[in-house]
C-alpha cells in the first residue's frame, strides 16, 4: 500500500479540495493520502468531502492555519 503526500500550503479555495480529489483518484483502494495545508476553510471542507466520498478519515491534526489530514481510500 502506497502513501501519497500532497502539499497545498499557501493555496486557497478550491485548490486544496481539488488536489485532494485528484490524489484520491490516482490512489489505489487502501492507499493513504496525506494533505498538508494552511487554508482554514479547507481544513473543515476536506473532512466533509471524505464523508461524501464514503472514504475513511484517519486524522485531522494541527491548527486551522497549519494542518495535516490523512485519508484512506
Amino acid at each position, binding site marked *: 500500500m502506497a502513501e501519497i503526500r500532497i502539499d497545498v500550503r499557501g*493555496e*486557497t479555495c*478550491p*485548490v486544496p*479540495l*481539488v488536489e*485532494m*480529489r485528484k490524489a484520491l483518484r490516482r490512489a489505489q483502494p487502501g492507499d493513504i493520502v496525506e494533505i498538508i495545508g494552511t487554508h482554514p476553510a479547507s481544513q473543515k471542507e476536506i473532512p466533509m468531502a471524505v464523508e*461524501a*466520498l464514503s472514504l475513511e478519515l484517519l486524522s485531522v491534526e494541527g491548527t486551522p492555519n497549519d494542518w495535516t489530514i490523512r485519508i484512506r481510500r
Partner: protein
Amino acid sequence: MADRTTIVVASGDMDKLYSALIIATGSLSMGMDVSLYFTFWGLERLKKGGLEKGPLSKMHMLGLGKLFMLSRMKKAHVATLERLMRDFKELGGKIIACEMTMEIMGVSRQSLREDLIDEYGAVGAYIHDARQSSITLFI
C-alpha cells in the same frame, strides 16, 4: 448514480466565471457529476483565448479594476481560470455549448475550444441534466 450539479453559465464576467468554476470543481471534488451549460455571454469564454478575457461585473473601470483584482488574487494564490478549467476537465466535468447562441451570435465550432466541449445542445440538454441534479444554478 452520483448526484449532479448543473450550472447555466450565461455571464461572461470574470468574477462570475470564477463562481461557476469554483462551485463546479468543488462539486466534482465532493463526488458529484457536473454539467456546465454555456450560453449568451458565457459562450464568449469558450472561444479560443477567451477564458481569461471577461471583464469584472462591477468596478471594471475600463480594465483598471480588473488589473487591481488580478493582482490581489495573485497575492492570495487564487488559481487562474485556465487552471480551474483544466481541473474541471481532469475530474470529468461536462461542458455543453448552446447552439442557439452560436447561431444568433455567429459563433462557429472552429472558433471555440472544441477540446473542452462534450456536447452542443439546446434547452433540452440543460433540462435533461438539471432534472437529475440536486444543485442547479444560473450564473
